[in-house]
């Protein structure tokens, strides 16, 4: 069996993996710190109907999705989930109001497992009975659940060096004023302690990120408390978060996007002219996700196998070292190349992006594509002034409707690229398209095929649609319109099924999950009378009235068209007719079959679709078997 017959999920060569994988392999440790105070369980929407959705639910949902994405992305990131403002406590320090959620066979901070995802998904159902919710900071008590939570999170993140791992605490809360309920010296004291705790964590290389949840009618005021905790200043506060969306889904979307950590592919130099050379980061925003690589296991022990590679000389059978010389047959000779020479051939440029000029956007044709694009965004990290130049060019290109043609001398495949400026697009759920340029890999003439010309005939002029036909087609287009279609609104059914099966097997479940294929056309919508009428009108206009009939006839003609099949049919008919004139059961009963000729016996066999080969005895016994004797 070939799992992936088309190789759609597979990279063709080793070198290609450079393109598809990100260089930035830093691991990430994340603690999801979720406020579980009663306020989180209040209705989230302003709308009465949305009562069922709580902020707590939104947070759980986001984390669930992110965990799933992590497991599919087969990342080595490690996560922990921790609630605070809980009734029960569960943590190493035995602090009140903090509950670290975990499942069996797993460290508190570890890679997500199938079980974690599954149990976490249902955590809400039993939350009240098992963990419970209550305000952790109340007047008259010295308890400070936020402080405790940060402490626990910091302790969870103790493992691993901050140099090789990026450590983050993601804090979900809808309380912008956690110490609002208390007053006086206790309050200042508690605030000071909490801020100190956060600062300590940040000094240890842990970044704290806030994912505030809010209701449309009461915004989340960062400046009351959290700005100081996060270390935001001046403008940063106002830019911190666009006001919460109108709809809850938008907020979910926003939170989900903010949970990702940007990972760049690499930093490259973009040389513009005369030694003006700016720096840009490249990001792989769009890459096909594959079901991941397989591992060979021993089917008896289920333990992984070690793969050993050896090189064998095909002529002598001797084991050899990994060769440094390659060859290509040419003119009945063998032309040898060293690896050095090969890499020299491939190196036609110095790995940079070289601007060659600009072209109007309509020069970029629909067939000028080979691979997913790469996003570029300027950086001033090493070359100060890069961003300014980039922004200026970006604006000019947008205004003048042009793209930049450049040569990208990557080692994998040096090639021409189109840099298309993309303006920032924001929607109700925040940023939809980031501002920057998309690098589109252009084909060479060697890569373009002139298929259209393949079936060209010299004398026949290809018919074109008439205006009326085009009008009918336009009417159809208007009918079957996907108004708010957005790219990537579909999940990949093959991948979903793949992971659904894996999850079920990993948890030892027998039931295979049923994955809905979202990519099927909307049959119901297409059968609406308006659409059916438009389709019918278009069909008649281009095909004529009796198309289906003609097609059926053509198909039928094809079916019984051939000489051989007609003959076969005729034979079967005669056989059936002839066969009917014998009383087979009687003949068989009296053992008279052997008196018949082979031709006569074959009538029966043909009429009953039995094989007609073999000697007379074989035919007779076949008839007897068929008659059930």
């Amino acid at each position: 069996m070939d799992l992936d017959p088309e190789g759609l999920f597979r990279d063709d060569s080793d070198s290609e993996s450079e393109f598809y994988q990100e260089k930035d392999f830093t691991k990430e440790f994340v603690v999801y710190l979720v406020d579980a105070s009663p306020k989180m369980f209040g209705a989230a929407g302003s709308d009465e109907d949305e009562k069922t959705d709580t902020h707590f639910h939104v947070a759980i949902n986001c984390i669930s999705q992110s965990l799933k994405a992590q497991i599919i992305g087969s990342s080595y990131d490690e996560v922990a989930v921790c609630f605070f403002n809980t009734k029960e406590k569960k943590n190493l320090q035995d602090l009140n109001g903090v509950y670290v959620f975990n499942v069996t066979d797993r460290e508190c901070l570890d890679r997500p497992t199938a079980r974690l995802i599954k149990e976490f998904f249902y955590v809400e159902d039993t939350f009240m009975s098992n963990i419970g919710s209550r305000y952790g900071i109340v007047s008259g008590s010295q308890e400070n659940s936020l402080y405790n939570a940060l402490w626990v999170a910091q302790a969870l993140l103790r493992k691993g060096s901050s140099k090789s791992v990026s450590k983050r605490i993601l804090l979900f809360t809808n309380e912008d004023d956690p110490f609002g309920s208390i007053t006086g010296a206790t309050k200042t004291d508690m605030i000071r302690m909490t801020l100190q705790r956060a600062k300590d964590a940040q000094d240890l290389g842990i970044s704290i990120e806030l994912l505030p949840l809010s209701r449309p009618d009461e915004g989340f005021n960062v400046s009351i408390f959290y700005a100081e905790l996060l270390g935001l200043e001046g403008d940063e506060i106002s830019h911190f978060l666009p006001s919460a969306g109108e709809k809850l889904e938008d907020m979910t979307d926003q939170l989900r996007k903010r949970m990702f950590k940007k990972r760049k592919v690499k930093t490259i130099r973009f040389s513009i002219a005369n030694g003006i050379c700016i720096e840009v980061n490249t990001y792989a925003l769009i890459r096909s996700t594959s079901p991941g690589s397989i591992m060979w296991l021993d089917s008896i022990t289920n333990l992984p196998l070690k793969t050993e590679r050896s090189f064998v000389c095909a002529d002598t059978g001797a084991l050899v070292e990994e060769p440094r010389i390659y060859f290509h047959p040419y003119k009945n000779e063998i032309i040898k190349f060293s690896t050095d020479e090969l890499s020299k051939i491939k190196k036609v440029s110095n790995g940079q992006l070289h601007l060659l000029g600009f072209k109007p956007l309509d020069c970029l044709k629909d067939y000028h594509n080979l691979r997913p694009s790469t996003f570029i965004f300027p950086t001033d990290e090493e070359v100060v002034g890069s961003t300014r130049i980039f922004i200026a060019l970006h604006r000019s290109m947008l205004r003048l409707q042009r793209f930049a043609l450049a040569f990208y001398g990557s080692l994998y495949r040096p090639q021409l690229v189109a840099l298309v400026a993309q303006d920032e697009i924001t929607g109700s759920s925040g940023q939809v398209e980031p501002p920057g340029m998309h690098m589109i890999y252009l084909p060479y003439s060697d890569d373009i095929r002139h298929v259209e010309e393949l079936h060209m005939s010299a004398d026949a002029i290809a018919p074109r649609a008439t205006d009326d036909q085009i009008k009918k087609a336009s009417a159809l287009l208007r009918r079957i319109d996907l108004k708010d279609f957005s790219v990537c609104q579909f999940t990949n059914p093959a991948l979903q099924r793949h992971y659904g099966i894996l999850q079920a097997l990993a948890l030892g479940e027998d039931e295979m999950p049923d994955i809905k294929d979202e990519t099927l056309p909307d049959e119901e919508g297409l059968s609406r009378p308006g659409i059916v009428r438009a389709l019918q009108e278009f069909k008649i206009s281009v095909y004529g009235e009796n198309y289906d009939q003609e097609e059926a006839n053509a198909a039928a003609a094809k079916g019984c068209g051939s000489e051989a099949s007609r003959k076969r049919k005729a034979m079967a008919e005669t056989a059936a007719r002839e066969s009917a004139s014998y009383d087979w059961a009687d003949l068989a009963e009296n053992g008279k079959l052997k008196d018949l000729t082979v031709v006569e016996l074959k009538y029966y066999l043909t009429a009953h679709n039995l094989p007609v080969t073999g000697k007379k005895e074989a035919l007779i016994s076949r008839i007897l078997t068929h008659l059930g004797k």
Partner: protein
Amino acid sequence: MARNKEAVVLLLDVGPSMHSVLPEVERVCSMLVQKKLIFGKSDEVGFVLFGTDDTYNELQKEVGGYEHIVVLRNIGVVDGNAVGFLQNLPRGNFPGDFIDAIVVGIDLLIKKFGPTNKGKQRICLITDAKYPIKEPYEGTKEDQVNTISQMMQTHGIRLDCIVIREKLPGADLRVMEENDSLLDQFSRKAIAKIVHVDSPTSLLGALKTRNISPVTVFRGDLELSSTMKIKVWVYKKTSEEKFPTLKKYSGKAHSSDKFATYEVKVDYEYKSMEDPDKVVPPEQRIRGYRYGPQVVPISSAEWEAVKFKPEKGVKLLGFTDASNILRHYYMKDVYIFIPEPGNQKAIVAVSAIARAMKDMNKSAILRCVWRQGQGNVVIGVLRPNISSVDNIPDSFYFNVLPFVEDVREFQFPSFRSFPSSWQPNEQQQEAADNLVKMLDLTPSEGEEVLQPDYTPNPVLERFYHFLDLKSKQPDADVPPLDRNLRGITEPDPAVFSCHKSVIDNFHKNFELKEKPKKKKSSKRAWRGKPSASSEEEGVDGEASGFQSSNLMKDSSNINVEKIGNLNPVQDFEAMMARRDSSKWVSKAIKEMQNHVSDLLENSYEGDAYSKAIECLLALRKGCILEQEPKEFNRFLLGLYEKWKDTDLANFFELLSSKNITLISQKEAPDSNVTEEDAKNFPVKAELKSQ
């Protein structure tokens, strides 16, 4: 293989006006033949030259006329000699007549194949069509073309014609127009394709050098709904031509072994972890799929039973505004949907939808399962492709779109939120506007520059060129990139110098500073892009003065810790001047040495020499000041030893003219080189080292 066997006759114009582009003609034709030697060993080729001094063709012998046409090689299966023929084309001194040449080409094909081999015969004509063709004996030139077209059609011969015209003044426009219209007549009357190119680079890309017979990905219905279907065939429109896969070489075979393959096979063995000596046989292996930290074993049979199995079919999901699908979401190589050949109704139906889509600026979204048993579905966007040629039907292009899982929604800061110091001011914006406007690759007169359709892959060009070179000269070095191919990888100096004022203005308006590197950052980041800016300067020559003055400002008050690429000399001097630690001097010297080495290593035809000399001068001065003459002398001698036998040797000649010698005892007492020895470098060094 033989099914795809084709016969090609190359008709090459070698008349006087073609001489300037003949090197490229030789190159592209050799490439065609070379690829045939590798991919189409049974293909047949023939070469005909016209505009030659001599005349040698059968038609001339049989019926007279047809002068200045030479059949260089009759049609025959490709062999190694065929490449040789094309690499030294004779330059002719007579105006070529391409119509006569076509007739000779057809004659060759007819004599060779008669009525057989229809549809697999091709004539490739490369000419500039600048000279008038002869008046025929009877009828008009148009009649003649008609007769020839008729003949080509009955024999199933295709014509590919490349007209190469660089922007040359003084050509006879009237003649060219007449010729062009005659050629166009071919494309109407016969199966012919006429391509106009105006640069040698495009010429290299204009001829299809490899004959790939396309296969359909899908044949069947494009289902608009369950009742309305259009019969289509789907092909790949683009597909990357990969660098050839080379075989691993083993020299172990005995020299007398005539059947040696010299190949190395790779064997994989799967061994159990516990017992490294135990090899696990294939039937005892089972696939394991990762799921987080777990590995889930599933046998092939189990997997087959549960996996996703969509039904074959191409279904429409709906139409949507083209603006809803941004260009950068296209995921893969491109497909083309053509209506079933010969099916008039399908052709009209596709045409109607394509034209309606074009008029309304709509795209269609499709769900495709190309084959039964395919394990996944493809969602993609269909765009109209309105044909501009009468005998080619309208069609669609299809691009694959991503699924949710394929997109990473990273958030980036808005440009507006950046500090004002990062925002361009009005003047800077204007400079950028001008740059974008002026560096235009679609000149109003002439063809679009570097069209993907006519741009060859420089790496493949170089590989095949080198392959042929090596077959003659096994120890040959990798040749530098051809001048015309460099036009693809680097900006065209002509365009850039033509708009020098715009570029200079842009340059003046923006300031770039290289930040001192933090110590922590690894050295790796710097490798691979040394000499970056210097190479640019090498190309643009005179502009370098500007740059250093522009960039100098800040390096003085920052403690430089690293020699950067933008202004290495200043960095070096700043580092040498640092007094906070003694290590800086040695570090500066070391880094400068590396920088010079990098420059030279990456220099191409001396483009980095001036920069390298500047750096060497600074290094020399610094070493004298800091009393480190040995460092410098050792380095210079090392450089010389390393590169004296390469094409960098001329660099050392340049050195003496710039007074860069070894540091003598007179200049620095620590040196052990006499003044005379120093002067005689590099001549003396040679003697010394021997």
